[in-house]
C-alpha cells in the first residue's frame, strides 16, 4: 500500500516515463532510418560508379567532358562516404563483429562529411587529425556517435553567432589520444554544465530532443576505457575533450609483451580471409604472408600465436621440430586449431585450444 505522497509521485511520474519511452522509441527509429538510408545509398551509388567506369573507358567521350566525369565521381564518392558514416552511426559497437579499434585519420575521413552536414552551411569546420597518431582501442562507431552528438549540440550553441566555427583537434598526451571538440557558441550555463551528461537532461523541448545523446555516448565510451568531459565553457564557446586509450598500450598492459605476431597455417583461403579480418578487428595486424604451413620458419622467428587447421598445425609442429630450439628460441606459442570435431589429436597432444570453424568470431576471446 503506498502513501498519498508516493501515489502523487507515481501519478506525476507516469507522463514523464511515457515521454521518455517515446523518446527512446524515436531514437530507435532514427537508428533504423540511418541504417535504411545507408543501405539505399549503397544500392544506388555502386551502379553509378560502374557506369562512370564505362564512360571513362569510352574513346567517344571528348577530353573536355573528362573533368565533368571526374567531378561526378568525386560527388558520388562523397555519397559513399556518407553511407559509411551512417553505418557507423547505426551500428551496435558491442557486437563482436564490429571493429574494436580506430585509426583516427581513417575514422575522420568517414565521419567528416556527416559532421559538415550536421553544421549550418556557413559554419567553418577546422580540423587537425594527424595520420601519425597511435591507434585507439575504441570502436569507430562509438567515436562517430559521440562526435556527431557534440557537433549537433555545437550547431545549436552557435545559432545567431556571426562567424560560427567548430574545431576538431586530435593529439597525443600522457599516454592517451585526446580529441578536442570546440565551438565558438554561447556556452553553457552552470546547470547545463553540471547536468549535460545526465540521461534525459536537455535544454530543448522534449518534442525535439531526447536528452540521451551525451549520456549514451559517455556510457559507451566508459565501456572501452574512454571518457568525455567539458574542458571549459564560457560565453565565447565550449570545449569538450574525448580521452581515448591507445591500442598498443592496452594490449601491452594486458599481456606484458610487445604486439603479438600471429602465424596462420590453414589451407582454406576462405577460412584464412575470415581469421585475418577478425584479427584486424582486434587490432592484431601482424600475420605471416605465406600460410600454407609448408615453409620453414627460421626466417620468421617464433610467433606468439599459431592459428590453423589440423593439417596446418601438424605441419607447423614438424617445421618447429626441424628448425630446432636454436632458431626458434623463446616461449612456446599459443596454439589455436580450427576444426569441426573438437580438434582431435592436435588439441590433446600439443595443448592447443580448439575453436569451431562455424564460430570463428569467438577467436578474440581466446586471444585475450
Amino acid at each position: 500500500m503506498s502513501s498519498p505522497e508516493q501515489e502523487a509521485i507515481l501519478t506525476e511520474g507516469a507522463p514523464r516515463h511515457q515521454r521518455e519511452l517515446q523518446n527512446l522509441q524515436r531514437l530507435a527509429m532514427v537508428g533504423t532510418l540511418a541504417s535504411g538510408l545507408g543501405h539505399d545509398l549503397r544500392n544506388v551509388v555502386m551502379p553509378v560508379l560502374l557506369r562512370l567506369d564505362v564512360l571513362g573507358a569510352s574513346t567517344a567521350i571528348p577530353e573536355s567532358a573528362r573533368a565533368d566525369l571526374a567531378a561526378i565521381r568525386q560527388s558520388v564518392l562523397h555519397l559513399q562516404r556518407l553511407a559509411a558514416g551512417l553505418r557507423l552511426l547505426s551500428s551496435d559497437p558491442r557486437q563482436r563483429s564490429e571493429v574494436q579499434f580506430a585509426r583516427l585519420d581513417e575514422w575522420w575521413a568517414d565521419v567528416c562529411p556527416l559532421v559538415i552536414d550536421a553544421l549550418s552551411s556557413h559554419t567553418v569546420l577546422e580540423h587537425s587529425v594527424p595520420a601519425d597518431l597511435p591507434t585507439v582501442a575504441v570502436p569507430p562507431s562509438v567515436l562517430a556517435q559521440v562526435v556527431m552528438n557534440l557537433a549537433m549540440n555545437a550547431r545549436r550553441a552557435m545559432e545567431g553567432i556571426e562567424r560560427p566555427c567548430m574545431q576538431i583537434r586530435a593529439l597525443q598526451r600522457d599516454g592517451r589520444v585526446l580529441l578536442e571538440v570546440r565551438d565558438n557558441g554561447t556556452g553553457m550555463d552552470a546547470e547545463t554544465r553540471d547536468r549535460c551528461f545526465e540521461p534525459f537532461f536537455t535544454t530543448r523541448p522534449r518534442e525535439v530532443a531526447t536528452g540521451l545523446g551525451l549520456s549514451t555516448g559517455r556510457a559507451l565510451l566508459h565501456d572501452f576505457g574512454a571518457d568525455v568531459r567539458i574542458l571549459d565553457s564560457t560565453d565565447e564557446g565550449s570545449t569538450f575533450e574525448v580521452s581515448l586509450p591507445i591500442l598498443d598500450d592496452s594490449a601491452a598492459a594486458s599481456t606484458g609483451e610487445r604486439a603479438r605476431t600471429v602465424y596462420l597455417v590453414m589451407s582454406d583461403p576462405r577460412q584464412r580471409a575470415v581469421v585475418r579480418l577478425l584479427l584486424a578487428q582486434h587490432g592484431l595486424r601482424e600475420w605471416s604472408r605465406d600460410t600454407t604451413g609448408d615453409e620453414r620458419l627460421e626466417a620468421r622467428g617464433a610467433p606468439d600465436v599459431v592459428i590453423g587447421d589440423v593439417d596446418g598445425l601438424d605441419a607447423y609442429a614438424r617445421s618447429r621440430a626441424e628448425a630446432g630450439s636454436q632458431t626458434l628460441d623463446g616461449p612456446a606459442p599459443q596454439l589455436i586449431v580450427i576444426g569441426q570435431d573438437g580438434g582431435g589429436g592436435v588439441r590433446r597432444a600439443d595443448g592447443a585450444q580448439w575453436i569451431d570453424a562455424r564460430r570463428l568470431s569467438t577467436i578474440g576471446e581466446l586471444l585475450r
Partner: protein
Amino acid sequence: MEESDTFSVMCIDDNVLLLDALERRLKLEPGFAGFHRLEDFQQAGDAVEALQPTIVLLDVDLPGGVDAMSILAEIVTRTPTSRVIILTAYPGGSLLEHAMSAGAWGFISKGVTSDRLIEGIRRVVHGDAVIALEE
C-alpha cells in the same frame, strides 16, 4: 587460372540498375565471357547448375522471402565449381562469418568502390578468398 582465362558471372540480385551497370562494366574486363541474370530466384540452384558460371554474385536481400543462405548452400552442394561471392548493402553483423563458413568465396559490401568490386571478382576467379567491406 591465368589473367587471360575466361570467366562468366551470374548476378542474383533484384536491383536492375546494378545488373545493367555491372554487365556493362564487366564487358571491359579481359576474359569476360558472359553475364547471366535470373528472373526467378527460387530456381537459382538449377540455373547455376545448368549454366556453370565461374562466379555467382549473390545479394542477401532478395525479394519474396527468398533465403540467400539457402541458395548459397544449394550452390555449394550442387555446383561447387561455381564460386559464390556475397554482395550486400548490409555489411554488418554475423552474416559474413555465416556466409564464409557456409562456403562463400567472397563477401563484398556494395559500399566499396567499383574498382574493389571488380578486383574482388578477379581475385576469386584466381582462387583467392576476398572480404571487402566499407571504404
